[in-house]
């Protein structure tokens, strides 16, 4: 009978899956090559790798194709794939001073040792629709690639740059890094209580959803618990990963990954009595080229260490870490699409009794809050 809760679910699901494919392909254009997405939708791929927390550009590009460009859906596909992968090694800590720089800027200092390296950025381009991209001719692309300047990225750059924050530290302006709590906890292998260990907190932030983190970071810098941040340094580049292996005497090189790193310098807080006032640091690092996320992470890393008695939303560690995960948030927000007939029936039963009681005693005013 038609009104019995959706039955024939199997056929409906199969039909829906076929329609998804049809809607993707009905335009009749040539199928997107995964490599095209990986190369030309670079920032989308990077975002998906970060939020899916798996560095796998080709799989991320494939997930984007499969999800028709929906980045949260693509991140979810990648994250679910990641959960099936074994974890054999933990890489050694990376020294980002040795990063092979693609881009590197500081908002705090005009001149920094090694210089500002603008790199590939749209920051100072006008956001005009580029109609010339409507029809990019292959020979034009080839001529452009063959032309000067194309391999300039990195050609004249040194192997490593000194860190801006190291200068501040040397001058005693910045608080030294906290040495306690250096252990590594894996948030995908255990569920932790609050306050989170530092390594767990940074993991949760590193795989957070860019938009959610941006909104919370924005709320802080607009005034809800402002920490008065400066961008000490923003770097985009490749870092080398090493692991130790019992069969090898030396750490083994396993590959390089592109990361974005942001070091946020924040206003000195009311320190302990008698302690020297110092600036404090918020740290952001994520897979791929995703500057908004790295900066937001740096701000949130710092805001969530607030000792303020009245905490703004972005200063509440539990609030921030529970709500920035795009996979969890999207799943639960979307779950309202599932049938809730039974629970709604239960609610109606309560409401009708309340209404009946009100009719029986119309003069009995409910107490104000």
């Amino acid at each position, binding site marked *: 009978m038609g009104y*019995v809760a959706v039955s024939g679910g199997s056929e409906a699901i199969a039909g829906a899956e076929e329609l998804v494919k049809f809607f993707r392909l009905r335009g009749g254009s040539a199928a997107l090559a995964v490599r095209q997405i990986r190369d030309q939708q670079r920032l989308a791929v990077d975002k998906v790798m970060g939020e899916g927390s798996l560095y796998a550009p080709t799989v991320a590009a494939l997930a984007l194709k499969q999800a028709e460009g929906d980045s949260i859906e693509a991140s979810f596909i990648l994250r679910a794939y990641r959960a099936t992968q074994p974890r054999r090694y933990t890489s050694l800590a990376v020294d980002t001073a040795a990063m092979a720089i693609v881009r590197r800027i500081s908002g705090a200092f005009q001149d920094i040792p090694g210089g500002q390296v603008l790199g590939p950025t749209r920051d100072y381009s006008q956001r005009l629709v580029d109609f010339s991209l409507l029809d990019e001719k292959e020979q034009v692309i080839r001529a452009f690639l063959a032309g000067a300047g194309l391999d300039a990225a990195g050609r004249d750059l040194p192997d490593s740059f000194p860190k801006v924050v190291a200068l501040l530290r040397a001058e005693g302006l910045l608080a030294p890094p906290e040495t306690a709590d250096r252990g590594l906890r894996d948030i995908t292998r255990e569920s932790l209580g609050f306050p989170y260990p530092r390594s767990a907190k940074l993991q949760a932030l590193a795989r957070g959803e860019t938009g959610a983190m941006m909104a919370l970071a924005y709320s802080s810098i607009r005034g809800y618990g402002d920490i008065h941040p400066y961008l000490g340094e923003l770097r985009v580049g490749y870092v080398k990963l090493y692991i130790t292996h019992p069969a090898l005497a030396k750490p083994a090189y396993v590959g390089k990954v592109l990361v974005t790193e942001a070091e946020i310098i924040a206003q000195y807080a009311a320190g302990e009595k008698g302690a020297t006032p110092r600036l404090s640091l918020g740290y952001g690092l994520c897979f791929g080229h995703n500057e908004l996320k790295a900066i937001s992470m740096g701000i949130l890393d710092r805001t969530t260490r607030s000792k303020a008695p009245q905490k703004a939303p972005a200063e509440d560690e539990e609030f921030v870490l529970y709500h920035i995960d795009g996979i969890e948030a*999207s*799943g639960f927000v979307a779950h309202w699409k*599932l049938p809730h007939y039974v629970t709604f029936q239960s609610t109606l039963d309560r409401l009708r009794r309340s209404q009946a009681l009100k009719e029986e005693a119309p003069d009995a005013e409910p107490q104000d809050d």
Partner: protein
Amino acid sequence: MLNLRTIERKHGYNFAFLDENTKREVRRKTLKAVAIPGHQVPFASPELPIARGWGTGGLQVTMAIIGPDDVLKVIDQGCDGGVNAVNIRKLLVKTTGVRTTFATGEATIVQTRHRIPEEKLRADQILVLQVPIPEPLRFVEASMAKTREMHAEMDYSRMWVFLYENIVKWGEITIGARYPSLVNGRYLIDPSPIPRWDVPKLHMADTLFLFGAGREKRIYAVPPHTSVEPLQFDDVPFRVEDFAGRACLRCGATGTFLNEIFDGRGGKLYVCSDSYNCDAVKAKREGTTDGGGQ
């Protein structure tokens, strides 16, 4: 660690999808949950290919306890044919190859969302409930760090005040489903969004009830023969949904949980929420023995 020899080649995944290490963790946490009835046990809860909030907690529990000889029933809102039930059943069948059934009495494991079947469950059956919000105190306290302390101290005073204020304001407690209940006289649980109708079925039952919250990463349990008491006042007793004078339009049953449906002419119809039970009652009334089946 991935053991290539144990991988089922057909679909490329381990039996019941999860790797054995993950299953082991879920089993250990489930045992702890059974040992401390009603206590929420945190677990790692890796992502599944089903969205968070769509039954991933229940799924992980089922995946950790299911064996090749089990007979599985999956329901959503009491219905075997609902799209989400179908989807979850498909994933479990694809990765385990177990036999499935609609018949409640035939199942060894029943995974469910929002209902406990009308038919009384036995000691050799396990009911796995999908849980969106494992924390009963969420009504009065948003922070998990704080509610953890409140549970530890068995400090449920704010919950009592909440219920009392409900009555003062509305003449009635406003919580419909997921009614807070005290397990074994110690821990308050959110029994998942089952209607109040189903809460008494948890009390001193023959069956083991396992609750899995995937997104919130918690497992808890109501073992067999354990008391489950919905919070109530001496003068305002707990009451279940009122279907007095109503019967299922389809099977004619009274005494089952009913869903109301608009008939398109301004009136309302009532049908059973438990689709298998409805089929079985209808078949019995019509003299056929086939109770739905697959």
